[in-house]
């Protein structure tokens, strides 16, 4: 009897909550129309409707006939890609580039943020931040141009080393060039989010650590790292979720015929097949394969992190 009355009370509580929400919505519907409707429509138009294009991956797509007029081939493109002799090379190149990129590139902005946080003068800090953020605004193509000039046989690097290597033709140098230039360009900008998170670290806590006798590393461990840990984890999960999404522009711009062994990755292959050869169905299938792997990695990493971090994740 008691149980019944309790569940009835819970039920009526839920109903009244829904009723209150509806009343609130009716009273403030203008707010929803002005602020939420545009965002909702934009998301639908630009994020969900284009997903219909995934169907191209299952057709022998002909732009004149359209998606529904083209011949349905099922998983044929996927079978072709996975059984192609170059599939493993592209996959390994992509994974190596992104995994090494993550290993080297992910800690760089965090370290930079720790260093910036140690600068006491606000003005000096601002100036240094400005210098660090600037490379982010250089276009990828210009950046690749700079890299090519610096690494040319007669470029500055060779002049400093007293050598005349053509680094751009060396497959073994491609990944280092790609990752190092990425860190140079993006670490400063990526450090913003960590610098902001570090500003939440309590000043008193830091002073308490100083009095406790903590050195700089111990202060970072005890005060600063806990302040940014959650941000770092979320950024890490997001980065792992993008592990297969290596941007094609930079790899393509740094590519030469001689470094193809290391520089041909899935995205450059999709570009070449799709846009240069006009094999839209095949390139969409490869792109979709890429995305599915990303989603699997994102979900797996998120659940792993949640297990290790007291249930905190995305």
């Amino acid at each position: 009897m008691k149980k019944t009355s309790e569940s009835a009370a819970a039920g009526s509580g839920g109903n009244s909550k829904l009723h209150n929400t509806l009343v609130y919505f009716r009273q403030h519907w203008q707010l929803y129309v002005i602020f939420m409707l545009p965002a909702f429509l934009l998301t639908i138009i630009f994020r969900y409707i284009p997903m219909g294009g995934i169907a191209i991956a299952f057709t022998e797509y002909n732009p004149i006939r359209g998606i529904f007029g083209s011949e349905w081939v099922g998983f044929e493109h996927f079978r072709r890609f996975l059984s192609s002799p170059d599939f493993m090379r592209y996959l390994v190149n992509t994974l190596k580039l992104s995994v090494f990129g993550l290993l080297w590139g992910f800690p760089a902005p965090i370290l930079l943020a720790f260093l910036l946080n140690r600068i006491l003068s606000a003005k000096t800090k601002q100036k240094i931040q400005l210098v660090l953020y600037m490379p982010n605004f250089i276009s990828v193509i210009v950046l690749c141009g700079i890299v090519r000039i610096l690494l040319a046989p007669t470029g500055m690097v060779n002049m400093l080393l007293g050598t005349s290597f053509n680094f751009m033709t060396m497959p073994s140098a491609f990944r280092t060039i790609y990752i190092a230039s990425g860190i140079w360009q993006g670490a400063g900008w990526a450090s913003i989010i960590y610098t902001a998170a570090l500003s939440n670290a309590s000043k008193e806590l830091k002073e308490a650590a100083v009095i406790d006798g903590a050195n700089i590393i111990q202060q970072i461990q005890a005060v600063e790292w806990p302040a940014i840990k959650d941000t770092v984890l979320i950024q890490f999960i997001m980065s792992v979720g993008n592990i297969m999404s290596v941007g094609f522009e930079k790899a393509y711009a740094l590519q030469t015929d001689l470094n193809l062994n290391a520089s041909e990755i899935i995205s450059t292959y999709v570009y070449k097949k799709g846009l240069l050869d006009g094999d839209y169905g095949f390139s969409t299938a490869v792109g979709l394969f890429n995305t599915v792997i990303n989603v699997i990695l994102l979900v797996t990493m998120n659940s792993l992190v949640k297990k290790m971090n007291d249930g905190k994740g995305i």
Partner: protein
Amino acid sequence: MASVQLNNIMKVYPYISGEDKKKNKKKNDNEPEKKINLQITDEGVVAVQQFSLDIKDKEFIVLVGPSGCGKSTTLRMVAGLEEISGGELIIDGKVMNDVAPKDRDIAMVFQNYALYPHMTVYENMAFSLKLRHTAKEEIDKKVREAARILDITQYLERKPKALSGGQRQRVAIGRAIVRAPKVMLMDEPLSNLDAKLRNEMRAEIIKLRKRIDTTFMYVTHDQTEAMTLGDRIVIMRDGYIQQIGTPQEVFNHPANLFVAGFIGMPVMNFFDAELKREGNEFFVVLSGVKVKLDEKKTARLLKNDVQSQPVTLGVRPEHTNISATGVPAKVDVSEMMGSSVHLHVDADGRDVIIIVPTLDMESSYNYGDLVHFTFSGNVAHVFSKETDKNLEF
């Protein structure tokens, strides 16, 4: 346990750039009438100056004063968190001006507890000992002993977020006492607690002090805390020491008008009065009422060769009595406090507070009632109109 000497300590916050200096100057030019409590010089903003104090071994010293008076800055200089701009800091006979905070053998309790949020209470308390490579058994013994003293043993495995404000402050104190520091520094440790908890924790600190037997420097803006905790109180204003003395001394013999107004609750009543010297006797005359000062006060005034002059007369509300004759006043507000009534009366345009014990009350007081008040000659404080100093000093 150690003595602490602060010899002519000074703190100047230098300007970061010429721009700041200009800005401050411009601001001050525009607001000449606004009182600023920090002195602005060409070198920078002076937060503390001419601060000299000898703290005896195991003494409990309280620095008290309004916000911005430099009390926390002074404490932070002792802790090593602020650089000392001038003067000498000596702890246990050693000059500590340039010694790192960790090597000063001090511990500090902060206003906002400053507990590491990701560590348990046990880990928080053990942290400083771990950094000093103390043996595990020794750490465990010290942490559990401190937890027992502070009655937080049951919370050792909890994280700070699972504790109440009072419990967190106990942990913060525990973290400080596990190190058995030579000097314990406390920066407004009770400010974040509600009134009831503050009273409880105040009593806890008094008990704690007896148990751990070390030198304390305690900062507060609450004069009740200062009066109840301190062996001696240092009252500060605008970076300067106003008076140093035992709670009794500063209450009974305030050095100047500021101290007289700051110490005591409700605040001291001040009047424009006349000090009359008649041979070797002194009288204060207020609204035609003449009160003879007692022998001790007379002796001090004679020693200082004080002559007749207009003065600011100070009498505490608890020393002001309702009487049949005396200074006439009209009742404004009557506040029932339980054991006493705080009577706010208007005496010639001045708000005067009189504390009337409930037991002595013959009738209730209503708005507009005419009353008379008087005071004895042993509780009247006379301050110079020109310097605001107590003429007895």
